[in-house]
């Protein structure tokens, strides 16, 4: 059952559940951050409206820099602004930032220890019809391996807004992964959110048959699968890991102990993402059977988000199969 302590959307199972793009939460969060903190500045590489930075630009035009289509410059100019005491947010599509400017992020932001916040919009395969060139399914991996970088993948627009606001105070480089499409609203204003602290959104304390560890928009599908199994008397818990790095090791360890079998779910290559982070940790502490739901070392193509998630193995049926498969491995 839904974990009541999480104060999730009471209309979670409604067919017409409210759907809002995750990136919208970023735009609102940045505007709020700008109002709260004068140090916040925004830089964009010619995608101001689609990354939702226009809300900030319209309110604070003198604190907004249009960089043009130049993502390498975007990252390093932000580093220079952070050096002078600002808290810069940079945005583009995830495929271009952090996709194209990885070395600039590594050297001029992280190695330089400058607290720049990178918002990668249109991440994941669900960007859809634009096709494989625009589907960033490697971004978590390439951000996760850089020392100092905090990596956040919110599950809905409310969580994205909270993550954006919370990032300002971290004094560290942060990557926030955003999706383009409308996404079911899972959490509420009252849901707990703390960077680095995973939330058990489904299940209660104690043992269960399987634990699902999910991130981003797919948390909603994981919840639906858990609800379905629960009705069949198979107990499933769902942990929403919005912060991939630093990983909430305590929560992951507890889930592994309680369930003894896990499924990880992410809209990302299996290599290097959330599943890898979980496996790296657990294999050293409490080796646990894990099934990975994600993209299996291929590029995407054009299609609707549902078509693509189904074709590339991230549909509800695939999560169900993974749950059944991992139970047999216990």
């Amino acid at each position, binding site marked *: 059952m839904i974990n009541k302590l999480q104060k999730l959307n009471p209309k979670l199972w409604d067919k017409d559940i409210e759907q809002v793009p995750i990136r919208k939460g970023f735009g609102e969060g940045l505007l709020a951050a700008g109002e709260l903190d004068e140090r916040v*500045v925004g830089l964009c590489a010619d995608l101001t409206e689609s990354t939702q930075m226009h809300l900030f630009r319209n309110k604070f035009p*003198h*604190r907004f*820099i249009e*960089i*043009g289509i*130049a993502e*390498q*410059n975007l*990252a*390093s*100019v*932000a*580093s*220079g*602004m*952070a*050096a*002078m*005491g*600002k808290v*810069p947010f940079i945005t583009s599509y995830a495929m271009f930032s952090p996709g194209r400017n990885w*070395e*600039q992020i590594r*050297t*001029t932001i992280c*190695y*330089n*220890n400058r607290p720049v916040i990178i918002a990668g919009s249109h991440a994941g395969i669900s960007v859809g019809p634009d096709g494989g060139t625009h589907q960033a399914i490697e971004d978590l991996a390439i951000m996760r391996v850089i020392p100092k970088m905090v990596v956040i993948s919110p599950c809905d627009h409310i969580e994205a807004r909270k993550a954006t606001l919370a990032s300002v105070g971290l004094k560290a480089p942060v990557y926030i992964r955003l999706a383009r499409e409308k996404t079911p609203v899972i959490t509420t204003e009252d849901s707990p959110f703390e960077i680095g602290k995973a939330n058990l959104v489904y299940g209660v304390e104690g043992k269960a048959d399987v634990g699902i560890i999910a991130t981003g928009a797919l948390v909603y599908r994981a919840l639906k699968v858990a609800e379905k199994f629960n009705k069949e008397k198979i107990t499933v818990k769902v942990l929403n890991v919005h912060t991939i790095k630093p990983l909430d090791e305590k929560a992951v360890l507890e889930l592994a102990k309680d369930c003894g079998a896990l499924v990880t779910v992410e809209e990302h290559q299996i290599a290097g993402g959330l599943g890898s982070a979980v496996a790296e940790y657990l294999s050293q502490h409490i080796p646990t059977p894990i099934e990975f739901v994600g993209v299996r070392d291929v590029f995407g193509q054009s299609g609707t988000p549902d078509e693509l998630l189904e074709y590339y193995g991230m549909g509800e049926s695939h999560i169900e199969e993974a749950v059944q498969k991992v139970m047999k491995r216990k």
Partner: protein
Amino acid sequence: MSDLTSEKIELLKEKANDIRISIIEMLVAAGSGHSAGPLGMADVFTALYFHVLKHEPTNPFWEGRDRVVLSNGHICPVLYAAMAHSGYFPVKELLTLRKFQSRLQGHPHREFLPYLENSSGPLGSGLSQIVGMALVDRIDNGQTSDKFFYCLTGDGELDEGQNWEAIMLAGKERLGKIITIVDRNNIQIDGYTEDVMPLESLSHKFESFGWHTEEIDGHNFQAIIEAVGRAQAVFDGPSVIIARTIPGKGVSYMERDFKWHGNIPGTDIAGEPAKAEQVTIALHELRTLGGQIRSEHQ
């Protein structure tokens, strides 16, 4: 900037020579590193650290300081030597260059040496950082600022596309407080710049992006300091000073030779002095100012 007297020019020449001697000594102690670039830029760095910059070496985090971003991190021996000789840290620490746990990393890392404004090594990102710094100064202080933002770049590194992204942005934003000095020494690792990837007409390239340009002899203190003065007077756009330098300047067998870009004295290179003689020759030439003075102790 204070006035440049003939006495001051003589003092700068001596400082530059001390810095070149330090560069050779630290490279030899390190056992690896880059020789030609640091020697070639010794005069420009001396002019900056001993005449041009507003800075307080004993109060390195003073908010009012000018900012210096080194883009081509591999010439850091000249930056470290200029900083040590101007009082940021003891000159003897220079001999720890490239050693385990030294503050003087092989390429600059500001977490090891916090007096640095930036870490660098991978080429082509310094200009972007100086643009970011100058943008903040304008946002916070408007036209009342008295800070200048100096970026030092190599010429070979201008092959990197990111530079031109930054050059375009600085022109668009008319960042008059930016003064970039390009080390125009015409060499890079694979050969002469005009063979590897032609840069000329470099001055026209910058001009067409909205920059004020100066082209000078990078070993003439009067020319360097006057060019900086003119650049400081430019209000409505960034400035670039293309400093024509001789790579390896001060050590005869290294001058103008790209083979010395990434090698240090004591390396077996065909056509060069015997390996065992190279350090002695280099230090002798520098200590006697290329034979201008007879005794090393004069």
